C-alpha cells in the first residue's frame, strides 16, 4: 500500500513538476532528489505525530499508574474523546508563545542548540529498516551511523547550557556531558556484541541474521548486552531515573531552564524522538525487528502470515516505549555519583566480559544462533 502511494505521488505529482520546470540535463537528478524528499517526509511526519501522542500516552500511562485519569478535557469539535486533542492544543500553545532570549545569553548558540538536539534524533531514522525492503538509506555501516548520531545529541544539551548564561542550565549541561560520555561507551560495547553476533553492520542484515524463531532473536545470547543497551538508552535520553540533567527538584529544569515557547518544545520533541529511536533500535537489534514472533511455530506462523512485517516492528517498538514510561513512574532519581559508578564500574566491565563470551559462542558455532 505504501509502495503504491509512493508510486502515485512520484508518477503524478513529482514527474510532471520536474518535466515542466527543470532543464532536460538535470531532470533525473532532480527527480531522485524529490523522491528522496518525499521518502524523508514519509518518515519524519509519522515520527513527529508519534512524538506528539507519546507525550499524551506518557501523561495517561503515568496517570493510571498513580491512580489518576490524566488529560481528559481537550477533544475535537465538542467531543472530549479521552483528551486526544491535548497534544495538538499543547503544540499550538507552544508555537504561539514568545521565545524569551536572556539578555546576556549567547544569542546565536542559544538558538542553534535546540536545532542541534533535534536534528540527529531525526537524521538517525534514515537507516532504520521498517521492512525487508522499506529503508531510506541501506548503507553498510548503518549501526555505526546510528551510534555516531546518537552521540551527537549531547551537543544540543551542552550548548544550551552554556549559551543560557545561567548557573542551573550550566550545571545541567555539565552533568549531561559526563553522563552521556560514560553511557555511550557501554552502549557502544553492547552494539559491538550485536555486530559480532550478526557479522554485519547493516541493520537489515542484522535483523535477517535473527530469523528462525523467537528463540533465535539476539535477546537470548546477548541478554546482558540487551539489558545494558536499554538502560544506557534511558540514560542517554536523559530520562528518569537518569534525568539528573533536568533534575527539577535540584537544578530547576537543568539545561533548558531559560528556554520558552517553541525553543523549549524542540528540546522536548528531541527527547521523545530519541526515546522512540532507542525503542526501535532495541526492537531491531535484539528482538528480531520486523520478524514475526510466531516464526517457526507450525500453526500460528501460517495463521499470522498475512500480518505485515512493519506491524511487528511497531508493536515491539511500542512495548519498549511503554517501558520508558513505566520506568519514569516507578523509579526515583539516581544519585549522581551512583550513575557514574553504574556506567563506568558495572556496565563497561560486564559488556567486555560478554563480548568474550559471545565471540566464543560465534567461533564455536553454538546452535541455534550461530550454526
Amino acid at each position, binding site marked *: 500500500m505504501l509502495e503504491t502511494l509512493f508510486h502515485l505521488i512520484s508518477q503524478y505529482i513529482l514527474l510532471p513538476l520536474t518535466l515542466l520546470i527543470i532543464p532536460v540535463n538535470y531532470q533525473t537528478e532532480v527527480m531522485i532528489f524529490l523522491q528522496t524528499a518525499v521518502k524523508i517526509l514519509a518518515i519524519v511526519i509519522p515520527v513527529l505525530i508519534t512524538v506528539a501522542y507519546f507525550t499524551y500516552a506518557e501523561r495517561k500511562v503515568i496517570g493510571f499508574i498513580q491512580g489518576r485519569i490524566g488529560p481528559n478535557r481537550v477533544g475535537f469539535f465538542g467531543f472530549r474523546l479521552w483528551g486526544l486533542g491535548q497534544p495538538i492544543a499543547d503544540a499550538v500553545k507552544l508555537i504561539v508563545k514568545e521565545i524569551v532570549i536572556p539578555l546576556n545569553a549567547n544569542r546565536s548558540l542559544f538558538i542553534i542548540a535546540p536545532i542541534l538536539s533535534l536534528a540527529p534524533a531525526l537524521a538517525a531514522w534514515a537507516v532504520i529498516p521498517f521492512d525487508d525492503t522499506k529503508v531510506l538509506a541501506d548503507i*553498510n*555501516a548503518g549501526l555505526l551511523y546510528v551510534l*555516531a548520531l546518537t552521540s551527537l545529541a549531547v551537543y544540543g544539551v*551542552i550548548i544550551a547550557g*552554556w549559551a543560557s548564561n545561567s548557573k542551573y542550565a550550566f550545571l545541567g549541561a*555539565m552533568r549531561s556531558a*559526563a553522563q552521556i560520555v560514560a553511557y555511550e561507551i557501554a552502549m557502544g560495547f553492547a552494539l559491538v556484541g550485536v555486530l559480532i553476533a550478526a557479522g554485519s553492520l547493516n541493520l537489515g542484515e542484522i535483523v535477517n541474521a535473527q530469523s528462525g524463531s523467537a528463540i533465535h532473536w539476539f535477546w537470548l545470547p546477548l541478554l546482558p548486552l540487551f539489558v545494558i543497551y536499554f538502560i544506557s538508552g534511558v540514560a542517554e535520553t536523559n530520562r528518569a531515573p537518569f534525568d539528573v540533567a533536568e533534575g527539577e527538584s535540584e537544578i530547576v529544569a537543568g539545561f533548558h531552564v531559560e528556554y520558552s515557547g517553541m525553543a523549549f518544545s524542540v528540546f522536548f520533541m528531541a527527547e521523545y524522538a530519541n526515546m522512540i529511536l532507542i525503542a526501535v533500535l532495541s526492537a531491531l537489534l535484539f528482538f528480531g525487528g520486523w520478524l514475526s514472533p510466531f516464526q517457526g511455530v507450525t500453526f500460528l506462523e501460517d495463521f499470522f502470515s498475512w500480518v505485515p512485517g512493519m506491524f511487528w516492528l511497531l508493536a515491539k517498538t511500542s512495548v519498549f516505549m511503554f517501558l520508558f514510561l513505566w520506568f519514569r513512574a516507578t523509579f526515583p532519581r539516581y544519585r549522581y555519583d551512583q550513575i557514574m559508578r553504574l556506567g563506568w564500574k558495572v556496565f563497561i566491565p560486564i559488556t567486555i566480559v560478554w563480548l568474550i563470551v559471545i565471540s566464543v559462542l560465534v567461533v564455536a558455532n553454538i546452535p541455534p544462533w550461530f550454526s
Partner: protein
Amino acid sequence: MTQIIFYIFGAMLLLSATMVVVIKNPIHAALFLVLSFFSSAAVWLLLNAEFLAIALVLVYVGAVMVLFLFVVMMLDINLSTFKDGFARYFPLGIIIALLMVVAMGMIVGSDYFATDTYKQIDTSMTSSNTKLLGYAIYTDYLYQFEIAGAILLVAIIAAISLSMSKSKITKSTHPNEQVSVKKEDRLRVVKMKTEKKEE
C-alpha cells in the same frame, strides 16, 4: 551532484578551520573545530570511506570534543588578553606553520608513502569498506596496529595515575561502606522526659 556536495563541504571545512584559528571566543573556536571534523567526515564519505568517516564523527565529534568543550567551559578565560596577542605571535606562527609544511612534505613525499610500497587491498572479496579495513588492519598491518594500541594504553594508564593523586581535597564515597551500613551506625534513639509547657 557529487561535485556540488564536495564543494559545499570543502568550503565549509576550510571556512570552519580558518575560524578555529581566527575567532576570539574559545567556545566558538571549539564548536568550529567540531564543524570542521564534521565536514571532513562528509568529504571522506564522498570517497566511499564510510567507516573512517563515521568513526571520525563517533570518536572525535561524539567523545573527544565533548570532553574538550567540557574543559574549555569550566576554565575561566579572560577574553581581553587574547586581543593583542595575534600580531605578536604571528611571525612565530608563520615559522611553525612553515616547519610543519616542510615536515609533512618530507614524510608524505618520501619512499615510505609511495603507494606502490603498500600492498593493495583486494577489493574483489567484499564491497564493505569496513570489512576490507578490518582484514587489512588485522592481517597485513597487525604489528603497527598493536603498537599503536599499546601506546594508547600506556597513555590511558598514565593519565589515570596522574588524576589519582592522593590529595586531601578530593572527597569520595565508598559504596561498600554505604551498603554495609546498619541502623545502629546511623540512628541513636534517645529517651527523654517530656518537657513541661511554660505557662
